[in-house]
């Protein structure tokens, strides 16, 4: 970025290639990420604000911003907000992710 005062996500007016119109149907896990944000940002919970989600995405940095898919960016950011608020710890999350991966491996055998 030539201008440090311009966020990487703030792209209005920059040169870019043609619009590629291919589309994909969202996978169930992507829809669940969307659902989690709808729930966590609702009036009763107010736990992950949309602006917190966006800030987390903006702070992923240029590499991750382009390399991750849309809902990968979302879950990465939602998770960061929840860690920051102490809803769970990194250790709890890491152990649970390992369990999830082990369960999936078991399901495939």
């Amino acid at each position: 970025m030539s201008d440090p005062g311009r966020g990487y996500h703030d792209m209005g007016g920059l040169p870019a290639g043609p619009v590629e119109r291919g589309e994909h149907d969202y996978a169930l896990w992507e829809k669940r990420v969307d659902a989690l944000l709808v729930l966590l940002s609702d009036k009763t919970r107010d736990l992950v604000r949309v602006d917190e989600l966006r800030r987390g995405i903006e702070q992923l940095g240029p590499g991750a911003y382009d390399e991750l898919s849309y809902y990968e960016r979302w879950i990465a950011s939602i998770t960061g907000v929840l860690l920051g608020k102490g809803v769970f710890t990194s250790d709890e999350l890491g152990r649970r992710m390992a369990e999830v991966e082990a369960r999936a491996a078991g399901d495939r055998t």
Partner: protein
Amino acid sequence: MSDTGQHSHDHTPRPDQDGPPSYYQAMETAVRELLIERGVVTAEEVRAAVEAMDARGPAQGARVVARAWSDPAFKARLLKDGSAACAELGIDMGPTHLVVVENGEKLHNVIVCTLCSCYPRFLIGLPPDWYKARAYRSRVVREPRAVLGEFGTEIPDDWEVRVHDSTADMRYMVLPRRPEGTEGWSEAQLAGLVTRDCMIGVTLPKAP
């Protein structure tokens, strides 16, 4: 400027069950399970929220457009307060403040979110991939006619093009003009002419 990241990921369906879960899929499952165990959300709420978003889609917006084409008083209310008018039709707009922008005889509107991907999702469902991608977000504010041309939409030189950048709390829907030759059509017939892309403003409804 390339846009490879988003495209290489987003262009093909990624089913849940094939192969090991990706790092981020595992993260989603783990986060969801922990949130359920800690009583922040319930499994039922997550399921219901997925179903509710699945039920939203362009057909819902098409119904609103068809009603506006058929009922001038409704159209006036829709332009004044989009969310309230949609609620009249039983549509749950959630937290959305909907602004409806009307195409005119020589005025074309198109919607974007240059900063992220704000979209009238409570009305017409989740956005298409191209709406969230760098090419559309970067270019449509600066060269709208060229971008519209890539969608096959040629706007005559003497028309005004107005781009709406959803930067804060409003969400936008384009109200296209009713095509010629549809006199006497029912709302259901009219709704059949209205596509998602018409409501984003990258295409125009096709005359019958």
